[in-house]
């Protein structure tokens, strides 16, 4: 394994970036759950009965995951969720793109207008996934609350 992957500074930077992105993404969804529920509905992937429940729980999972990454508490669990969630988001976007469904991704501002195409969003999420994999592989445990 290349040493750079476990570099303390790199790992801290990636934690802050990914954690910040997840907290930012969660904020708008928590503020306006109805808009986020609409975003989920447009994917036609989730059963109607569980759309609202998903719209209520998912943003909090993003928020707690982001906070846990930055603080370094419940860290391995947070890294696992980051990678699972990114894979789910990529799969959902790819599925929508494949079916020709025109959607706003609902990534950052729920159903607010976004000029990003589904493919652009998939590329961006792949970028985040690379960061998530770095955290997965990194052995650095510096500057973590759990170690204090």
């Amino acid at each position, binding site marked *: 394994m290349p040493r750079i992957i476990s570099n303390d500074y790199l790992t801290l930077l990636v934690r802050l970036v990914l954690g910040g992105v997840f907290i930012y993404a969660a904020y708008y969804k*928590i*503020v*306006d*759950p*109805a808009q986020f*529920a*609409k975003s989920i*509905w447009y994917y*036609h992937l989730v059963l*109607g*009965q569980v*759309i*609202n*429940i998903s*719209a*209520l*729980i*998912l*943003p*909090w*999972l993003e*928020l*707690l*995951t982001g906070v*846990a990454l930055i603080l370094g508490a*419940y*860290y*391995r*669990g*947070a890294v*696992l*969720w980051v990678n699972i969630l990114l894979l789910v988001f990529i799969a959902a976007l790819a599925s929508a793109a494949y079916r020709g469904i025109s959607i706003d991704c609902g990534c950052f501002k729920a159903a607010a207008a976004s000029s990003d195409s589904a493919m652009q969003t998939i590329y961006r999420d792949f970028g985040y996934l690379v960061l998530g994999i770095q955290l997965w592989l990194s052995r650095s445990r510096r500057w973590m609350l759990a170690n204090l």
Partner: protein
Amino acid sequence: MIRQAFVLLLFSIILGLVVNLFHPNKIPYIGEYRELSAGEGPIIPPSASEGDPPFIAVDVAQMEHQMGGTLFVDARDSMEFNCGTIPGSINLPFDYLPAENLAQHIDSSLGRVPKDKPMIVFCSGEECDLSLHLARNFKGFGYTHVSIFFGGAREWEKFGLEMERRAKCPE
């Protein structure tokens, strides 16, 4: 690791469910979404042109209606509106709007509706293009989130969705 992930999920479930109880924009825990014409896409009239507000299908209209927060505008005359319309709609009969000062008339008819309020304009159905004309005017006057439900009241009723009837009318 699995235990930590489970704890994060558990707290997310608790927070998501509890915070919604006190949320100013709370939503029902179980949504009443209906599978209608999903996948068939919206009805788009031949008279539609590029730059028109987007057209939406009945399943999108139903979803927006049950979620709330979207203003439904019926562009037909008041008699048709009273005979049966989408519940909660307001009536803005396009045929009876004045030719002069149309922007001010629409603004005052809509009350203090912000320009970015999501709005869905409709009329009877496919033979009626009042919704198209009214929605074009809305867009021209600066309303930014206007959609057209071209299936209209007839398609709404055809799918068994609730109608609001203010008057008894002949079939």
